[in-house]
C-alpha cells in the first residue's frame, strides 16, 4: 500500500466525519423549524402557562438554539443521548437492545440478499438478453414499484396465516435461543431481502456488463482464454469495486426498509422505536435515532468509496 492511497482513504474518512457533523446540525435544525413552540405542541393548546414554563425550562428552551445544539452534541459525543419526554427513560439505555435487534435483522437479510443478488446478476450477464435475463429485469422493475408493506403482508398472509409456518409477529426477548430467534425473524428478514434483492441484482448486472464490454476483455478472449479464465482473471479484479459499491448502496436502502418492516412485524427494533416516538412528538428520541440511522448510512457510503479507492490500480500504483 503506497502513501497516496492512505492519504485518500484518510481524506474520505475525514470528509465523512465532517458530513456527519453537518448532518447532526441539519437533524437538530429539522426539529426546530416548527413555527410555534415545541413545548406548546407537546402539551397541546389547553396547557396551563405554568406547565408550559416548566416544560420549557426542563427542555432548556430558554437558551438560544446554538447553545442547545452544542449541549446536545456534547451529550451525544459522551454517549448521553438525553431522556425521552414521553417516558422519562434514558434514551441510550432504551436504544441498546433495539439497535442490536435491528442490526441482527438487517444482517440476516444481507447475508441472504448479497450473495443471491450477485449470483443472479452474474446469471443475468451470462445469459444476457435471454429469457433468464428478461425475467430478472422484469422482476427488478416490478419490485422497485412494490411498497414494503405489500411484500410484508403478503408473506404474513400466506406463510403465517394460511400455512402457519412462521409467526406473523416477530417477538424476540433477551436470552431467546438462537434458532427460535431465527424463526421469529424469518418473515421480516425475507421481506427485507425481497425489498433490496431485485435492485441490487439489477445494479450488479449493470456493473459486470460494463466491465465485460471493455476492450481488455476482448483482448483476453482473443488470447484464447477459456470463458472462465476471462471472467476470473480479467473481469473479476475490475468488477470488485463496482460490486462492493452496489452492495453498500443497497445496504443503505435496507436501513430505510427496516423502518417499515419492523412496524409490519411489530419487531422491537430502532425503526419501530423511531416511528412510535415521531407519533408522540418525542423530539429527543427522534433526534437520537435519526442521527444513528444517518451515521450508519454515511458509514456504508464511506466503505463503498474506500473500496473503490483501494481497488483502483491507478491509485495503488501511481506513476
Amino acid at each position: 500500500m503506497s502513501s497516496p492511497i492512505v492519504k485518500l482513504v484518510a481524506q474520505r474518512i475525514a470528509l465523512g466525519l465532517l458530513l456527519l457533523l453537518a448532518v447532526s446540525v441539519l437533524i437538530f435544525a429539522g426539529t426546530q423549524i416548527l413555527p410555534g413552540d415545541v413545548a406548546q405542541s407537546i402539551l397541546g393548546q389547553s396547557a396551563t402557562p405554568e406547565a408550559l414554563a416548566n416544560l420549557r425550562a426542563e427542555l432548556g428552551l430558554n437558551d438560544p438554539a446554538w447553545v442547545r445544539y452544542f449541549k446536545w452534541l456534547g451529550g451525544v459525543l459522551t454517549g448521553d443521548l438525553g431522556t425521552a419526554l414521553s417516558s422519562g427513560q434514558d434514551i441510550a439505555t432504551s436504544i441498546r437492545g433495539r439497535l442490536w435487534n435491528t442490526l441482527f435483522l438487517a444482517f440476516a437479510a444481507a447475508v441472504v440478499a448479497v450473495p443471491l443478488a450477485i449470483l443472479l446478476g452474474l446469471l443475468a450477464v451470462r445469459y444476457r438478453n435471454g429469457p433468464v435475463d428478461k425475467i430478472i429485469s422484469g422482476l427488478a422493475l416490478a419490485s422497485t414499484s412494490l411498497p414494503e408493506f405489500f411484500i410484508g403482508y403478503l408473506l404474513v398472509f400466506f406463510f403465517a396465516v394460511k400455512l402457519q409456518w412462521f409467526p406473523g409477529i416477530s417477538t424476540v426477548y433477551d436470552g431467546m435461543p438462537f434458532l427460535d430467534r431465527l424463526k421469529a425473524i424469518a418473515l421480516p428478514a425475507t421481506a427485507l431481502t425481497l425489498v433490496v434483492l431485485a435492485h441490487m441484482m439489477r445494479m450488479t448486472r449493470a456493473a459486470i456488463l460494463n466491465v465485460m464490454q471493455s476492450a481488455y476483455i476482448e483482448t483476453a478472449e482473443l488470447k484464447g482464454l477459456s470463458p472462465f479464465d476471462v471472467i476470473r482473471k480479467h473481469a473479476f479484479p475490475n468488477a470488485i469495486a463496482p460490486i462492493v459499491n452496489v452492495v453498500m448502496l443497497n445496504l443503505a436502502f435496507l436501513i430505510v426498509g427496516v423502518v417499515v418492516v419492523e412496524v409490519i412485524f411489530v419487531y422491537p427494533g430502532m425503526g419501530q422505536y423511531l416511528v412510535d416516538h415521531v407519533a408522540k412528538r418525542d423530539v429527543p428520541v427522534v433526534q437520537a435515532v435519526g442521527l444513528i440511522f444517518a451515521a450508519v448510512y454515511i458509514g456504508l457510503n464511506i466503505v463503498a468509496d474506500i473500496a473503490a479507492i483501494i481497488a483502483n490500480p491507478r491509485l495503488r500504483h501511481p506513476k
Partner: protein
Amino acid sequence: MLDIRRIPIGALIGLILTTLFLLTAIFAPLLAPYGLGEIVGDVWEPMSAKFWLGTDNLGRDLLSRMIYGARVTIFIAVLATALSFSLGAILGFTAAVVGGWFDTLMSRFVDLLMAIPTLIFGLVVLSVLPSTILTLILVMGILDSTRVYRLSRAVAVDINVMDFVEAAKLRGEGRGWIIFREILPNALSPLVSELGLRFIYAVLFLSALSFLGLGVQPPQADWGGMVKENKDGIVFGIPAALIPAAAIAALAISVNLVADWVLNRTTDLKGGRGNG
C-alpha cells in the same frame, strides 16, 4: 412519429392502466357507489355483489374508499412531484449554466440533504410539523427535489460543454436562448422519464408515511392509510389490507413501465449497433 402499433405491449398496458387510475381519481365522486365515511355493512364483510371488494374495519364499502383513496394518493403525489420537479430542475439548470459559487453552494447543500435517508429525515421533520396535507406535499416535494436537482444539473453540465452550446455562446446568444433553446430540448427526454420515477417514489413515500400513521390523517384516507386501518385483519386471514397495497403496486408498476419505455426510446435515438 408515435405509432400506436409500435409501442411495446408492456408500455401499452402501463399507459392504459395509468390512464384508468387517473380517470378514477378525477371522477371519484361519480364512480364510488357509497360515500367515503358511510358505514354500510358489517366489519370486514367478504367480497359480494353488493360490496365488490368487501367492507373495511368499520364496515365501510372498501371499493368506494379505494376510489376516494386514489384521489387523495394521486393528488398529493402529483403535487409533490410537481414541486420537486420544478424546484429541482430550475435550480439544477441554473447551477449548471451559472456555475461558480451558486453551483458549489447548492451542490454541497444537496449532498448534505442526501446524506440522510429521505424517509428518516422526513420522519424527523414530521415529528414537529403539524400533519396536514400541505405539510406532506412540502416535505415530500422539497426532500425529493434533491434527486431531480442532481439529475438535471448532471444532464445540463454534460450538454453545456458540447460544441454546439459553445458555438451558440460564440455567436453571442444570451443565457435565455442557451438554456431554453440549446440545453432544454436535449435534456427533456431523460427528465420526462425521471418524472415518472419521481412520481412513483412520491406514491411509495406517501404510502409509507400514511402506513406508519404519520401521513394523511383520518377522516381523510389514502391507500397507505387504508392498509394501516385494515392490517389487523390479516392475522385473521382477512385480506382487506392487501387490496390498497396491491393498488399502490399496480399504479407504481404501470407508471414504471411507461417511464422505462420513454427512457429506452431516448437511448434508442442515439442509434448505433447493438443494444445490450
